[in-house]
């Protein structure tokens, strides 16, 4: 087991190195750039050359990359071109917001998706099943930004159930401990802040959850249908076991194996979905930061760091999924 983890971590390092090179080259080849953004279109060529030199962008790309990697290895991602703040600081402010949003979305997707998928399979061909299939199709097809604005319009403009944007009501003071506002409120016993953060969280989380929810419902349904036909479920019935024992111990435990894998793969969808969702709800997480950094003049240092971080999150989550697989399915352990 330990060997597997070590091997996977080494793979992770190689993946991140390769990815960092790709991002570096790709970003530098985007049209526009920090120099144009900072100086505007009508700057003189002399001023441009001066700034390009000052930022070090006149050097060969390999040299730039070498310097970048050298600093990254010491934990220094440079300063944001846009604001001048250290990148690590900018990101550590935004990162918890995105994680909080993504976790909330995943809780909704799994908490709703697994039971729905199970019921749809159990009542295959009935009304609930058909409704679920239609609903998941809609959930997968509907663009996030469209759904986001739709929900926002309905629930914040027409009926004022939820706040339209942000993570906290302006003026409400909360103590920042972890950066997860709901959790912070609980830790510091500022329960009003917790409730307020949760209230702000619901709409964005629902928006972000739709695609993973639809996928998880589908996978669970298909997986439960497979397991229902397994001989060991018949054995469990022949033993006269109670429904809930059969459901929990014999059906779901086996049916959830593919679902767990799906959860890992959906991390990617969640991260890209967060960019759009955060834009709609002005969430102030990595998604907001990424859009601002691109439109606000190709803030190379910030963009490089965010993309690397996203990749790191994706790979780590999938590593955890693989490891959890070994705990759920004993057959994986031995091999």
């Amino acid at each position, binding site marked *: 087991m330990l060997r597997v983890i070590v091997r996977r971590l080494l793979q992770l390092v190689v993946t991140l190195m390769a990815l960092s090179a790709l991002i570096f080259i790709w970003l530098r080849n985007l049209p526009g750039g920090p120099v144009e953004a900072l100086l505007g279109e009508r700057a003189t060529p002399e001023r441009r050359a001066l700034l390009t030199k000052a930022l070090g962008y006149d050097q060969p790309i390999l040299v730039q990359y070498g310097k970048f990697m050298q600093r990254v290895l010491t934990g220094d991602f440079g300063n944001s071109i846009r604001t001048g703040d250290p990148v690590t600081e900018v990101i550590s402010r935004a990162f918890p917001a995105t994680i909080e949003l993504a976790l909330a979305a995943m809780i909704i997707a799994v908490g709703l998706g697994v039971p729905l998928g199970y019921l749809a399979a159990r009542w295959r061909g009935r009304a609930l099943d058909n409704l679920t299939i239609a609903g998941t199709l809609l959930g997968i097809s509907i663009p996030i930004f469209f759904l986001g604005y739709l929900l926002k319009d309905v629930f914040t403009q027409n009926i004022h159930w939820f706040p339209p944007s942000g993570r906290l009501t302006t003026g409400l003071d909360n103590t920042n401990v972890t950066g997860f506002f709901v959790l912070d409120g609980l830790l510091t016993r500022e329960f009003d802040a917790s409730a307020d953060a949760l209230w702000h969280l619901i709409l964005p989380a629902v928006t972000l959850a739709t695609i993973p929810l639809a996928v998880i419902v589908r996978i669970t349904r298909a997986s439960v249908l497979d397991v229902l036909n397994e001989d*060991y479920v018949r*054995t469990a*019935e*022949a*033993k*006269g076991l109670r429904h809930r024992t059969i459901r929990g*111990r*014999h059906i779901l435990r086996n049916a959830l194996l593919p679902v767990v894998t799906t959860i890992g793969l959906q991390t990617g969808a969640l991260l890209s979905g967060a960019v759009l969702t955060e834009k709609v709800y002005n969430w102030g997480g990595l998604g907001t930061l990424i859009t601002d950094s691109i439109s606000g003049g190709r803030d190379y240092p910030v963009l490089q760091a965010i993309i690397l971080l996203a990749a790191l999150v994706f790979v780590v989550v999938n590593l955890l999924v693989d490891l959890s697989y070994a705990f759920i399915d004993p*057959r994986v352990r031995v091999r």
Partner: protein
Amino acid sequence: MSLLDVRDLSVVFQRRGERPFTAVDKVSFTVEPGQTVGLVGESGCGKSVTSLAIMGLLPKRGNKVTGEVLFEGTDLLRLRPDDLRDRRGREISMIFQDPLSSLNPVIPIGIQVAEVLERHQGRDRKQALRESRDLLDAVGIPDPQRRLSEYPHQISGGMRQRALIAIALACKPRLLIADEPTTALDVTIQAQILTLLKQLVDETGTALVMITHDLGVVAGLCDTVNVLYGGKVVERAPRHELFAHARHPYTHGLLNSVPRLDSPRGERLHAIRGSVADNIPWAEGCAFAPRCDNVVDACLEGPPPLEPTAGGGDLRCNNPVSEEVAVR
């Protein structure tokens, strides 16, 4: 009163847009306490469906079960699902064909045995596991304490079937239904499992319904044998009677198709011509008629009734094999 009295049990599979298919057609048979009864026939003759119908394990939709299954006088088919659930695994148990797929791959063997005891005997986990170890020991699994925490893929096929037998017999049921319990096993293991089953039912007085296509299994175990063809019982006889004087051409053919070591070298094996798919609906005549060597006109005019024979059994045939013609 018989322990199990199956009366006119029929199972009709009906899917939307398809013609209904009668898998089991008015099958009747009885099992006395402690008796071993065989249900014999080829694949597709309805023997497994019969057993699943008795246990109430057929899918809830897409089939219609009629008739009566009287277990100690109670009709299992009319029992509330929860009441039947209370009896399954406690009074009636079942073991299945493929021991690997019949055990849950992600749960230790010990829990799979213990959960029956927890459910029906009200044992707590610790006590149930202790008893499970003794049960595994009783069915001849070596090092039972270690097996408790092992998973099905870690033990051999024979041990898996032994574990399933331990599960089935955990609550000392009065009836055990074994659906081809040795088909998926090596020949050497088959004999061990059959010996074990015989020994256990003898010791505990459990009645056994043995479902098999293997006449060797029948010869070694069963008191009474029911031969099924096309969902109907075509011949029923005490074991010795059946092996000495099979009257139905189908039974006769089955017995003759068993290869024998003492037959002359180079002799062709006997087979029943055609396949089980060649049968005709019972409504039109004898289902076996298209494959039968003894077929007469009456066979195609309507199904022959099941009638008692002089030998103490029952027979459904217009032109049975003469009693003098012994099985080869």
